[in-house]
């Protein structure tokens, strides 16, 4: 065999490696939500500090509704600081962040809020109606609503700064009253 041909041997592995690398492009894990693109279900709850929390009152602002529970480790523990950071960054830029605590004991939930120093409104969904309306199956789940009250995105699992920022910046950029793509 001529000298140079032998180098084909290592090179022949490259197509297979390329195929495997291609596999990273596809993401098999997304579960679509039937609610995306539809108006968010209205709700009115009482926050832990006693104030009233209702979705209607925030029409015109970008609203993020986050469903959590104190017994949800480790995901809710990971995203709580993310949410608090995001709240402090965006609250004066037209964002409303509402945390809905589901299937939880009040004391445990209050401890969770204290431990993480959460300053955005959090309320307990005692009857479970809100989570059912939103089709929440597990925690954490986060819904991104535009200024018109439409659900534009749903994120399942712990949020990161990047994901939060990406969704919110997009929605904040839209002026009120103008429908945008889902």
């Amino acid at each position, binding site marked *: *065999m001529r000298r140079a041909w*032998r*180098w084909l*041997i*290592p090179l*022949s*592995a490259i197509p297979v*490696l390329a*195929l*495997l*690398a*291609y*596999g*990273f492009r*596809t993401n*098999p*894990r997304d579960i679509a939500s039937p609610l995306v693109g539809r108006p968010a279900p209205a709700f009115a709850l009482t926050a832990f500090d006693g104030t009233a929390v209702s979705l209607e009152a925030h029409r015109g602002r970008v609203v993020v509704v986050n469903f959590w529970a104190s*017994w949800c*480790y*480790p995901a809710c*523990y990971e995203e709580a600081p993310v949410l608090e950071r995001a709240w402090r960054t965006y609250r004066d830029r037209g964002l409303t962040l509402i945390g809905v605590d589901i299937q939880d004991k009040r004391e*445990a939930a209050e401890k969770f809020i204290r*431990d*993480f120093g959460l300053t955005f409104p959090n309320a307990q969904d005692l009857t479970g109606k809100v989570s059912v309306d939103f089709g929440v199956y*597990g925690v954490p789940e986060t819904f991104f609503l535009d200024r018109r009250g439409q659900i534009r995105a749903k994120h399942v699992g712990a949020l990161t700064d990047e994901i939060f920022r990406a969704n919110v910046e997009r929605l904040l950029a839209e002026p009120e009253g103008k429908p945008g793509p889902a």
Partner: protein
Amino acid sequence: MIPEIGRAASLVALVLALGGAVAATAGGRTGRSALVEAAQRAGVGVFVLISFCFALLTYAFLTFDFSVRYVASNTNLGTPFYYRITGVWGALEGSIILWAWMLALYTLIIVLRHRETTREFYPWVLAVMLSVLAFFLLVMTVAASPFERLAPVPADGRGLNPLLEDTGMITHPVALYLGFTGLTVPFAFAIAALVTGRVGDAWITMTRRWTIIAWYFLSLGLLIGGWWSYHVLGWGGYWAWDPVENAAFMPWLAATAFLHSVMIQERRRMLKLWNISLIILSFTLTLFGTFLTRSGIIASVHAFTQGAIGILFLSFLALVVLVALGLVALRWDALRAQGELDSVVSRESAFLLNNVLLIAATFTVFFGTVFPLLSEAVRGVKVSVGAPFFNQVNIPLFLSLIFLMGVGPLIAWRRASTDNLRRNFLWPVALGFLAALVAFGAGVRPTLAVLTFATTVFVSATIALDFGRATRARRRTGERLLPAMGGLLLRHNRRYGGFLVHFGVLVIAVGVTGSHAWSVQTETTLKRGEHAELAGYRVRFDGLSASEESNHAKVTGAFTVSNGRVLDVLRPAKKFYPQQQSPIAAVDYRLGLTEDIYLVLGDFARDGTEATIKLQVNRLVSWIWIGGVVITLGALLAILPEARRPA
């Protein structure tokens, strides 16, 4: 405390491994033994550190230290003691540390035992082992650290995946990883051989036992996986051609090929290139296997989560493949064949055919596994191929391989004369045909089953013939029967160990055939007192009961099984773990030599008056596990130290 200590220790281990690898390489190039000794000490140091990390993690598990994220994710206050230990390797991060620990253990053994016997190769073997170790330590410190801190510390953990609360799941990863990591050693020697240019038999002789042991653990891991699947998962099967199963099967196929082809190189000095390529392939496939399981590129019910770890693995895989194949290209001339195949009808030929078939099977499994990826890349359509594809293509290959098991050990080297063929194969072939007729006459109709039985009888006959003749020869010198047989086994332990392993494979083949051809199942809903009938068995639903365990609640159904007379009461259950999404079924079964009765509790009415069950009567499945035991005995026999020639 623990997270920080653990992270520090793993970081130090990583630095040591890298430094050691560099030192070993430099020592190999320059011949300076001081460098090699430094690398050696690094290897020992890495082992101590990883053992420490492992112990630390186990301690965190045992003391419910939920400040460690990994502990919180895999255990909770109700997890039983036993599963708190085994839960250490129950998820991704723990599996990496287990893998790294085993690699370190093997490195230590090489340092302790092979220093003297492997002179020239030693630095390079060390370099390779430490490099692979460094990679896994890198993954451990950068992408998948088990020592990440969770703050604030939760009051309770999530708990171990209930599917993992089983003895099978405890031993399965350990055995499998011992096999995977074990293949690193012959691979390291092969690289050493390539680098030093000494591509003769030396590296093979030195790693013979390693290869058998690694191969054995792979086999054991696969069998235990099948057993776990059978008795826990509730679908009544033991192998589904799932991508993760295939990922473990491919290295096994390649390793089996390697195991056989090295025998030709030892005898006839041929196939140097082939052997080196095979071990590179086997090792690469183990990396590919862990990559597949952890990268998420192929959807599987088994897979761990995805993330940056996939890219790390693919990069390392690419590095290993390109470097190894590059070395092969470099040493191409030295690897060229010296001997030639004399005849198609010879032992060399049989072994070659064995290899071709095994590689064909490896390729088939690989192709079927990555097919969804391929079809999407090429045609933009996501298509997958399921069990029918794998069975259809692999079954003829495996059947031919079984046939070869009978031919290979007896046929002559170089060129088999007609006389040799007649002497060795006339009776076995005749018996095989007879078996086929008997099977057919007894009502066995599936062609595959008839062929399998015939081939099994053929191979058994060749084994018996060989053993019988050899025993007779020994007895002619006056030895009594049992000592003659025992002496044979010990004196030629490699050969007879191999025979025993082959026999174990036959037993498994019969089990697989039986379970495929004759298993039956039914699904039905029963009211209290009603019964279901299948294959002569009557299963009566007696009622439901509830109980509370330490970390779950259980609903158990009582079913009386009879076939004329009462045989047993089976109690399949549904376990409710509070932290899990849904209940887990606990299968109950009655195992038998010829058939298993298998019962799954599906749905049930809340008041306990009705239950939906899945009932299976599986045939000959126990033979698969029995075959595993036989293979164990064979492997043990094969690795015994060579007996001395008696005076």
